[in-house]
């Protein structure tokens, strides 16, 4: 799938790790967003360098008890949600135009 070759990038760098839960808390355009554990693991990799394929690959290793198909579905769905909520740009290129 073409979409898996995209290199998504966070649109907000105002985020931190919650010490108690080791999950990510983001200040987005509509306020605070608290991510769950898998969401946090994805967020950390949305650096414009990882492709979606590589994110899926790394998470498959990090969560060996989960099936790859399920991880792939979760990652794509989660990133799409972040894009819809203006928290992530899907096709990041430093010399880009306004393309989401």
């Amino acid at each position: 799938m073409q979409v898996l070759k995209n290199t998504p990038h966070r649109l907000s760098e105002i985020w931190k790790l919650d010490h108690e839960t080791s999950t990510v808390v983001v200040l987005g355009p509509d306020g605070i967003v608290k991510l769950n554990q898998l969401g946090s693991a994805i967020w950390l990799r949305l650096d414009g360098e990882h492709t979606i394929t590589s994110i899926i690959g790394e998470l498959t290793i990090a969560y060996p008890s989960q099936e790859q198909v399920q991880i792939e579905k979760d990652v794509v769905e989660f990133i799409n949600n972040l894009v819809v909520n203006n928290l992530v740009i899907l096709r990041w290129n430093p010399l880009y135009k306004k393309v989401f």
Partner: protein
Amino acid sequence: MSEILLIQPPTPTPNRVHTKDSTLSAPPIALGYLASLLIESGYDVDIVDMEILDMGGEEIFQLIAKERPRLVGLSTTTLTYKNALRVAAIVKELNQETVTVLGGPHVTFTAEEALSYPQIDFVIRGEGEKSLLALTRFALEGYGNVTDVGGLSFTNTDSKVVHNPRQGFICYLDSLPFPTRHLFPLHLYSAPGLIITGRGCEGRCIFCAARGISGGRYRFRSVDNVIKEIEVMVSLLGFKFFFFGDDTFTADAKRTRAFCQALQKSDFKINWICETRADTVDRATLQAMVDAGCKIVQFGVESGSQKVLDMINKGIKIANLRKAVKTALDVGLSPTCSFMIPHPNDNWETIKETKALMKELQSTGVRMAVALTTPFPGTYLANHLADFGMKIVCDDTDKYNFSTPILETKTFDTWDIREIYFDMVMLCLHNPKPSLRPTSQKSEIETNN
């Protein structure tokens, strides 16, 4: 078709589109100064601000293919440096003969590295006006000698990088023509009325490169010269809102008051904002500023810890800052205080002090802003990182955006820095709105758009 194209590359920050409406955008006035001097000398020049025009690689490719410039000048900060290299690569892809020149704060201190890229022909270090004009005469007309162009770096026929001696600073700034503004899409900027009344800085802050770029002494334009430029901007362009972009607008209190009096006597009825240091203002100066239409003054505070301020050579006492802010509020200004974290000797205790000062000032009606410390080339900080126990953890300058932690200190790792920054930004969300209390002009803040 313009024979010279001056380009402001876009920031690579992924959120540049999203922040466009919330940040103050102003034309890259340095390119306006360069263009003025070139136009005055008979060259055909155009300016392309890729950032404000929302241009990407494809758009600039099309534009350069159409314009076919003979010389392309690219202005760079550390954040836009790699995009400047990318645009220069596009220029050369279209025509190897087009001359490419980089200038600006970043390459002033990294010329050799920039010249290691085959798409870069020349780098201008320091103040660019005289150097670019001389280089243009040499490159486009074969006039003079390349080794005589002050501040120029280039690779010679032996593949050695040559750094010509720096061009002396322009002491008499009134001699410069006003920056060209008609080449900017002024309607797109939220603060198109940017104006510079002086250059240089006598501060010795370890995180700032201003001294290395524009000299360690203030150089001022005359009051008459600045008033004349404002008159042109008001009468020809209809500007009502001005942004004085000097590093320290009130560096010379007497001159500031003279300027404010001249402005008050005029019929311009403008509003304006400026940035300055807390140790250069007094009640009479701040009152004169309000009387002349000033609405917002920004103080660079950097830290709430005196120990940290002393260490970074800020040269400001917190007691004096409190007094300056209180006086600004008293006379009817809306102060904004900007902070930076982390400093080399910051620890959890000093961060606590900084947060406490932020809360204290905010409770009195002051707005806050916070940014992450970035060791820019040419700063004392960048040259002494290891001595300070600091370490760069990200050397990708595309990420030097003041929000991404790119270094660690002896106390804080990037996770700590993220957490401190997050908490401080949250604090800034409670900022009061700019004060619109009536002043002598009895007008609210108006922008040109």
